[in-house]
């Protein structure tokens, strides 16, 4: 599947396209098929996101997983600071990116 990620203009937070807006959670991602670049152009023009790009992802039992480790770390947060990830209660959350 093709998914979109970028950053929130004001906060810089990593965001993911959920089909109608931008979510902080990768599991909300929508498959954009071949429409990714069109969505990016529209959303960046409206300043709802910046530095957006299309990536490959796959649906797994654990949710949507970006194909590349860099995007998995973006999705989770720093593996060396579980307390700063989106899953602060899970000290093993970093293993998801490997």
């Amino acid at each position, binding site marked *: 599947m093709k998914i979109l990620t970028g950053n929130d*203009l*004001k906060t*810089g*937070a*990593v965001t993911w396209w959920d089909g109608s807006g931008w979510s902080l959670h990768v599991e909300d991602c929508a498959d954009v098929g071949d429409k990714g670049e069109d969505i990016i152009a529209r959303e960046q023009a409206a300043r709802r996101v910046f530095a957006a790009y299309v990536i490959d992802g796959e649906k797994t039992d654990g949710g949507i997983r970006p194909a590349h*480790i860099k995007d998995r770390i973006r999705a989770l*947060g*720093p593996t*060396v600071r579980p307390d700063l990830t989106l899953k602060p209660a899970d000290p093993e959350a970093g293993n998801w990116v490997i």
Partner: protein
Amino acid sequence: MYKYDQYDHAMVEARVAEFRDQTRRRLDGSLTEEQFRPLRLMNGLYLQLHAYMLRVAVPYGTLNSRQMRMLGDIADKYDRGYGHFTTRQNIQYNWIKLEDAPDILADLATVEMHAIQTSGNCIRNISSDQYAGAAADELVDPRPYAELLRQWSSFHPEFTYLPRKFKIAVIANETDRAAMRLHDIGIKLVKNDAGEVGARFYVGGGMGRTPMIAPMIREFVPLDQLVTYAEACLRVYNRYGRRDNKYKARIKILVHEIGAEEYTRQVEEEFAHLLGQGVEPPIAELERIMAFFADPPFEAGAAGEIDRSDPDFALWVDRNCHEHKQAGYVIATVSLKPVGGIPGDASADQIRLMADLAKEYSFDELRVTHAQNIVFPHVRKADLYTLWQKLDTAGLGTANLDLIGDIIACPGLDYCSLANARSIPIAQKISERFAQGGKEDAIGELKLKISGCINACGHHHAGHIGILGVDKKGVENYQLLLGGSEAEDTSLGRITGPGFDEDGIVDAVEKATDVYLAQRKDGERFLDTYRRIGIDPFKEAIYE
């Protein structure tokens, strides 16, 4: 230390106001990201893996306690309660909001700090010896010269758009603690036969994807021509440095391609031309700056002995303290490398504590080291035990300076958008592995440096043991290098062979140290043994 005059204040405050307006225009859509990006980078604001990252300049690594306290307060108020001290003696924050950035710069300006020229193709923060002004064996304090060059290079209109970034280091000691010859310009202050102090210039060093050791191009530049000579070096680079390929744009490539001799010839020609142009500031300006770096009021006849009855303290003294030029004082280094910790990270509370302790025990002064530690440069021996106790209570009493646990590591793929692999988890595993069973002690001095990509922010080329993270078909892989040094015996490490996975690289490091322990002769460091026996015995053990 240096204090801003009205011009410094006016420049920094004008820049804050300018960036506040630029940020407003970005947020209201008047500026696109393409237009705004170079503007935010000129103010140290990057976009990293998780958020905006702000890099704050710490000129030649020198801070007072008020500045350090502000760095802690910023970590709490605008970030997530910590900061990361970098290999260019700066600090960076990983979770900055764009809308807060102008306020942070305004807060920094109140303590005479900024983030100008911490990014972009300009002259970056000038680095120096973290023991400057305190070491017993230095020729002179190099910081006034670094400050003069900082003033010359700040907003220099001719050098705002260089072919690539430009890094300068200034030292004044036979012992190199600033990786001087791995800079675009390395300056070593020396004395000539007449006993005059001048500057020896090394140009064209660097790490990154093409590591090079800078050749010396001028043995002695008189101090009243220092800025002019630096200007000549930059002018030749600005004129002929490549702009068609960013990977070949650093001055080291120019010097390598045309040769040090030809580069020097052109610099000398430009220098001769510039001597008549009035580039050099009056020597009175250097003298004005030097007055800011006068010695603090040391106590004459301070006690010369340290009570070593606490063995943990005695160990810390042996490992983390350095001889001071003033009897009764020492230089104390706070390791930001606790066992299993994140190299260079400090919490807001720890930063503020160090600020308070510097005020009480080190004449209000601290230094950031390129090895990502903090120095208290002037501590009375009589105060040392109390200082250590307070540091240790806050998790800052680790006794491992220059040992294998004192690892330089870039933020790597946990934070950096350029990285190919994570650096910090490797550092943590090595630190934990060698802290067990006294192996770290047995090995002694061993400088291990880790970079998460070829840009080499973790100085892997210059580690006695270096580790380079690469992307191998989407999987993290780690190459091992041996034999590098960024000290006065500068050398570049050699890759041992095929890379390793995360656990494999830790095992490989241990095998390399086992070879050293088996083969070392009396008094040899890891690097000495490597240089004596060569890489083959290590490769045999690592790849057996």
